[in-house]
Structures are given as structure tokens and as C-alpha cells.
């Protein structure tokens, strides 16, 4: 079944190669490097968000009409801007609705949310039926301001509360991160939620994975103002931060995907003891699932430790530790989970002092992708001989592992494999690349 996948893959590869160049160039720049990791929207804790419509590109060449939230930094983007605030902040989000139907915002997990100064409660129409889960910004430039105190650190989402089955699927969702006050590089107040610190302006070892899906027939119907029969709903695209694999590994703000600003590649160094150059703490991955079904996300390379669900830490200071190790992180519909990832070079294979004790087949005897993340060497930090005609996506012998939805129909682009909700975990040697 090579045709469709090969085509999609080839399309993605040009993008990926460019991405690596961009990454390596920007990593030597001393200035702010926001090519990877979480990318917080400026202006916290006050945000002005507008709904909008635009198009996103899929790796197979398709272009999909979507809705989205954006601030003044983007004319249109998917997913919505990442709203980062700090525990105790008084948060204000003003929503301007450019759509031709009403919309609203809900903030699951936040308490005492106000809308234009009154409690943000479900709305009813004149017959008493629920019309919205929150007060609306009316169609054609209506506005409403939501306020709340972010009193619990954690990973949350915000999304449309009006006709959400349609509006969230169309793209009205985003991440809300509440950082613990006076606890840098931690997800919660418990120091066991620490993640690897990085210098100011450098990419954080903190990553967001927002999982969503698209039925292109629905999006076409909305674009053309036609009716859609929901009994025919069938998702064909499965997004990670608004992109499909392999576009997911392109950097943040990749110029060729102006409406899809967020990459999702997880990038760490091998875990070492302090002073040896490697990461001494894990990376933090914040999962947010806005699909109507569970997301079964499988990081290769190592079991992750799930430390929180829905912004509730599973490991509390002085209390029992209910965190759990999972090689398959299950995130329920419209739920979030926080997980810690490390990778340790347990065997310490080295070509001279500790060679891999089996014959590594020469490249003539194996199949290699036309473009490969493999360094043609089993050893971390070593690069082997590249076969003729093969494009390397590897920089210095770093390792790459896959991370993907293991309901494998979600790891496709319209059915073509190596797509959808799939990204990479990049592991650099302790000495760096």
C-alpha cells in the first residue's frame, strides 16, 4: 500500500528537512529561540481573542477550511493561542466574535468564571432549552469578557461553549496553562513535578500536545454554508497542535504553515547525573484532548510518569503518591494529563568500549526510508555511512523516537500511514549536538 503514503511522506519530507536547518541555525543564535517547546502568548494575564476563519494545510496536499481563535499576533491560527498565566493571577479574556453565529468560551476546571461581570452560566433560549454553556459573544462582532482567578496550577483548555460539537471540531479550542507561583520549572507546587530548567530565551523542556480531529466533509459544508448530516461524521485528519505528521516536527512559527504555529517535537538530552552534561530532570508533556473520543498516546523510547489529570496533581506534598507509569497515556475526551519523560542511556553502548553485542546489518541488507532520521549508527552521538540516494534528517547522531496515537487509524492522513497524531521525540547526547 505504498502509493498514497509515499506521496504524503515525500510531501512532508521537504518540510522536515527545512525544519532541521531552521532548528540548527536558530539554536546557535544567542537571542530568543522559540523554535521548540511551549510558546506562550504574550500579554498575560489579559488576552484579547477573536474568532476567525482560515485554511490549514495537510501533509498530503489538502487544504482545510477551519475556524479558530487568535490574538493580534496572528490573523488566523489553529489551535488557539496558548494562554499562560500564574497561580493567583486575575485572568481576563475578551472574546470578539467575527463569525456569523454566536459563540462563547468555557474554561473547564476554572471556578467562579464571570462573563461581563456576572457568573458565566449556561444560557437558555426563550423556550427554556439550553442554548449555550456560557454567555455568548453574538455573531458579527459581538464581544464578551470572561474573568476568573487562576487559583490552581495545571494544564487546562478553553473552548467554545456554544454548539460545541460543531464549533470545537471546527477549531475553537486552545490551551490554558497555570504555572505554580514561585516554583519555576515545575508543573505544580510539588517539587516532584519539576522539569529540566533551561536558560531564559531558550526552548523549554515543556511541551504541549493538543489532540483534535477533522472531518473534511463537515468543514467543506460549513465553508459553503451547507447543511451537514452528523450521522455521516467520519474524521479523516487527526491533528497534534493543529498539524498532521510529519508536519508536526517542523518548528514553531514555521513560515510555510503560517496558520499552524505550533510544533510538537519533544526534544531532550539523555538523562545523566549532574555535571555530565545531560538533562538531570525530565521533560514535561502537557496533553490536551479536544476529540470526542479517548486519545491513546504512545511515546516510544520510555514509559512516561503521569503526574496529573485535568489539572489535579496525583502526587501531593505530604500525601500519597498516586502518579502512575504508562507507556500509553490515555487522555479522555476533553480531558488533560501531565506526564514526565526521560530517556537514559542505560546500556551505554559505545563502538569501542561497549559495542552492541549483535551484528548491526549493513545498510545494503536493510530497508531505509528515502529520508531517514536514523544516523546509520546504533550509537548515540555517532553518524554512520549514509547510503547513496538517502537523505539524512539527522544532525549529530542524536536518537529519534516516535510518539503517536496508538488507535492507529488516528495516526494517518486520510488513511495514509505515518501521519496524523504522530510526532517525534529527539534525544541528544549529553554533550549536545
Amino acid at each position: 500500500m505504498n502509493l498514497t503514503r509515499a506521496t504524503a511522506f515525500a510531501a512532508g519530507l521537504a518540510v522536515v528537512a527545512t525544519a532541521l536547518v531552521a532548528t540548527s541555525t536558530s539554536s546557535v543564535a544567542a537571542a530568543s529561540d522559540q523554535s521548540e517547546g511551549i510558546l506562550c502568548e504574550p500579554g498575560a494575564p489579559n488576552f484579547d481573542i477573536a474568532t476567525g476563519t482560515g485554511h490549514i494545510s495537510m501533509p498530503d496536499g489538502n487544504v482545510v477550511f477551519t475556524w479558530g481563535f487568535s490574538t493580534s499576533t496572528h490573523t488566523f491560527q489553529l489551535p488557539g493561542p496558548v494562554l499562560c498565566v500564574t497561580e493567583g493571577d486575575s485572568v481576563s479574556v475578551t472574546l470578539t466574535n467575527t463569525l456569523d453565529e454566536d459563540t462563547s468560551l468555557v474554561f473547564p476546571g476554572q471556578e467562579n468564571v464571570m462573563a461581563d461581570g456576572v457568573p458565566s452560566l449556561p444560557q437558555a433560549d426563550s423556550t427554556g432549552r439550553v442554548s449555550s454553556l456560557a454567555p455568548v459573544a453574538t455573531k458579527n462582532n459581538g464581544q464578551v469578557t470572561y474573568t476568573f482567578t487562576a487559583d490552581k496550577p495545571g494544564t487546562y483548555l478553553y473552548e467554545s461553549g456554544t454548539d460545541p460539537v460543531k464549533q470545537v471540531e471546527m477549531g475553537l479550542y486552545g490551551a490554558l496553562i497555570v504555572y505554580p507561583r514561585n516554583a519555576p520549572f515545575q508543573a505544580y507546587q510539588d517539587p516532584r513535578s519539576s522539569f529540566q530548567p533551561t536558560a531564559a530565551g531558550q526552548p523549554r523542556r515543556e511541551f504541549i500536545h493538543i489532540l483534535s480531529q477533522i472531518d473534511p466533509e463537515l468543514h467543506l459544508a460549513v465553508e459553503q454554508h451547507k447543511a451537514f448530516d452528523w450521522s455521516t461524521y467520519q474524521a479523516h485528519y487527526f491533528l497534534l497542535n493543529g498539524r498532521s505528521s510529519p508536519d508536526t516536527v517542523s518548528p514553531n512559527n514555521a513560515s510555510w504553515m503560517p496558520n499552524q504555529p505550533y510544533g510538537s517535537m519533544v526534544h531532550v538530552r539523555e538523562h545523566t547525573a549532574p555535571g555530565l552534561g545531560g538533562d538531570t530532570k525530565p521533560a514535561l508533556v502537557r496533553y490536551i484532548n479536544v476529540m470526542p473520543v479517548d486519545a491513546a498516546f504512545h511515546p516510544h523510547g520510555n514509559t512516561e510518569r503521569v503526574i496529573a489529570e485535568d489539572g489535579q496533581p496525583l502526587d501531593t506534598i505530604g500525601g500519597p503518591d498516586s502518579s502512575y507509569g504508562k507507556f500509553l497515556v490515555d487522555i479522555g475526551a476533553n480531558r488533560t494529563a501531565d506526564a514526565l519523560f526521560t530517556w537514559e542511556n542505560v546500556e551505554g553502548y559505545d563502538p569501542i568500549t561497549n559495542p552492541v553485542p549483535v551484528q548491526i546489518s549493513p545498510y545494503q541488507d536493510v530497508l531505509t526510508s528515502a529520508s531517514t532520521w536514523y544516523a546509520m549508527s546504533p550509537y548515540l552521538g555517532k553518524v554512520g555511512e549514509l547510503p547513496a540516494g538517502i537523505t539524512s534528517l539527522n544532525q549529530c547522531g542524536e536518537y529519534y523516537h516516535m510518539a503517536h496515537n496508538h488507535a492507529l487509524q488516528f495516526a494517518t492522513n486520510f488513511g495514509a500511514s505515518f501521519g496524523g497524531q504522530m510526532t517525534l521525540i529527539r534525544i541528544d547526547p549529553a554533550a549536545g549536538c
Partner: protein
Amino acid sequence: MTVDDARHGPTESNRHAPTDQGVTVNDETTAAGTRSPLISRRNVLRAGVLGAAGVGIAGVAGTRAVRAVADAGWQPTYRREVHLAATDGWVSMPKLAKKVPGYWPDTLAPEPFNMYVFGFRDLTGASDAVVIGERGKAQISAPVLSFDQGSEVRVTLTNLGLSQRPDLVDGHTMHWHGFNNAIPIFDGVPEMSASVPIGKSITYLYRPHDAGTYMYHCHFEDVEHVQMGMTGLLFVRPLMNYDASGAQQIDQTDPVYPGRKLLRYVFNDEATRYDREFPIFLTENMPEDHFRDAHIQISDWSTYDAGFALFNGRAFPDTIADSFDPMLDYEVGSDGARLKYQPQTARIDVEVHEKVLLRVAHLGSVRHTITVDGIPLHVVGADATPLRGEDGIPAVAATGTSPAVAAVPGTDNTYFTNSIDIGPGESRDVIFDAPAVGTYLVYDRNFMNMSNTGGSGYGGMLTHLVVHPAGTLGPQTAV
């Protein structure tokens, strides 16, 4: 609820009679005493390989031989070298299932089969000639692999090609799903390392450090190769199964089998002890996709609608049939002839006094809710990780005047439940106390999966837990 065996028809009549219970397969005499003809898995394989001798065993020894093999079908092995072959082949979903017009039964399928698959075979120790001869004879629910924590394991994977699809030059890989601190060359993702071309082999090396229930599967064009059947279970057994000298621990206090050799634990944790274990491997398949692969058509893999839901590669009522050996020839028309490429039974035979471990793992595409009717289930592990907090404190040895300090285990996060909610890619380790003698049902409480292709009657993820009187099965052992 108990179920009268008779309800399931005449083919059931003697199946669970204790006198006919298969003995466990062991090269050595067990503490339970001398046993009538034992056929080790190794011997059966050898016999099968020798052709005439293989037929002899299947034909002459009949049920007895099959029974012994049956218990060996997924019998734990403590090997460190495994040779897997990857190829395509044909299997049989239940013959009486509702037809899927145009797709199932597959018109290309040779009798007695009806569905096209890809799969792995265990051909450890077989000659090159024998290995090549197994092209086109894939099994689904791949061979269960079990290894010891701390051992060095080599799995050699040979790609035999696809007999039905010579136009495809797909590679294959082995991805050990969940292996900690994996390095890419042994992780089996083609784009991150390499895959095995037709006619070649790759040897994967592992040093498993963490006990538990894992899975493995091919990662080449994963959505297709996994759906087509290249999926199986993999166990890592804890060091605690061994004493300080490295010998397997012996339990002289076992009330029924004093001297039971294989005292087993799921993890290095006393609380995870069990007497007898069973794999319950969950997958589903979509007959339309399998048909299209056989008939050189393209599937849109993003549309998925399970037709058959499987335990160990079989749908009920095949789940309760014996285990078979793909290397043996079985009488035409028999269950063995039809199910030899789905060789692992999903019938759970236990004794009344025992602690039973179900290793439940899932490489299908939709969630399942597995229940053992009326029996409290103790979930002790998930994803090859003990359900314990990381707040435990290790033991401190005595030094000088300071006395030793005992270890404090981490928070006990194990739990009791009546149903195991499990999604794609996950595993659970579940222990329960065998109830009174009788037959009980194990099934998916999502009843959509308890039917075959949406037809009437019972099918899919449904099997029997058969509780036998004490002392009738012999201890579960391993080669």
C-alpha cells in the same frame, strides 16, 4: 454466573473433563509425579519439521498430543534466542458468522480459511529450508514471548515476503511496545532505524530491566500491518522468580502441589504472586480491509469499523477451542485444521484454589471493558508498571551500631474492580481468586464486541473460565 457446559453443544462434551486435562509441558518430571507421554513444544516442533514424524504425532496421539500442545501454545518459555518469521497467510473467523457481503468470507481464501492476514511465526531452531517453507503461513496473535528480567535476549526477524501479494515489497520490523530506554535500532520504527527487506533478517537485542506485560508488533506501515495481524504479547518475568543462586524458586508450602517449581510473581513484589497465568490479547479486525489487501485494493485506514473482536486472535466460539500447533497437520474438518494459524486458545483452565493472573493487553483500535462475570478483579499493574507510588523508601542495611531499616513500599495504588477498561496500546495485570468449580464467562461488556460482524447470537470477545477441582490440572510449568 456459571454456565452449563452442555449448553455449548456436543463438541464441548469432554473438553473440560478433568481426566482429559492436558498436562503441562515440561522436559523434566514435575513434582506432581510421573506423567503420561509428554511432548515438549520443542519436540513437537522438531517432529513437525521432520514431516512424516509430525503427521504421526498428530494422527496417532490425536487429542492427547494436541492437548499437551494446547497447554504449550502460550506456555511460558525462558528462552533468550527467538527466531520469528514475518509473512502473510489465511485464517478462519467463525464459520457461522454473518457474512459481510462482498468481503467476507474472502473468495480467494483456500479451505478451510476465510480471511487474509499478515503475521509472525515462531520458527526458533528450524532449518533455513523449513523457515522458507512457512512463507504464506502466518499466524495471528503472534507467538507469546516471555523473557527474564536482566537476561540478554536476541530476537531474529526474517521477512519471508507475502505469498498472496508478490507485487508488494513491504519490509517488516519488530517493535517491542513499551520497552524502556529503547535505542532506535532495536525499536523497529522504519523511519527511525531500519526494516527487514524480503529474504533478509535483523537481530534485535534487548536487556529487559522491568518486569511486566508488554506487546510487540510490526511498525512498518503500522496502521496496515497491525490491523492485518502482526501483533502479539510479550512478558518479562521478575527476578523474584529466582532465588539467590539463580534457580527457580520452589514453594514447598503449596497446598496442592508442594514443590511447585515455578512460584511466579508479576513484579518484584510479594503482593503480585499467582499460581497460573493466561494471556488475554485484545484485537479487532475489519473484514473489508483484509479483503482489500488480498485483492490488491487500497483501504482508507482512517475509517475503521471492527467486524470481529478477538481474544488471542480468535472470535467466540473459537475462543474456547484448544490450542493448536501451526507446525502440525490436523484431520480435515477438525478445529485444528481450521484454527492452526490462530493457535492460542483463549479458554482459561484453572484449579479451584488458585490465584489466577490474566495478562490483558490490547493492540486493537477501540476501547474494551473486559469482565470476568461476578468475580472481583485485583488490578496490580498497568503498562508493565506496578501500581505503586514512587514514594517508597529502599531498605537500609545495618552498619556498625545502626540497625537495618526495612524498606517502605510506595503507595499502594492497586485496585479492585469488576471490569477492566482498556484502550489501544495498554496492558493490565489482573489477579483473582478462582471461584467454585464450574464454568464462567469472560467477555467485553461493550456488547457490540460480543457479536460477530453484527450478526445475531454470541461471538467476538467472549470466552470461558473453567474452574477445575484441586489437583486435576498439574502445576503450570514452563520449558
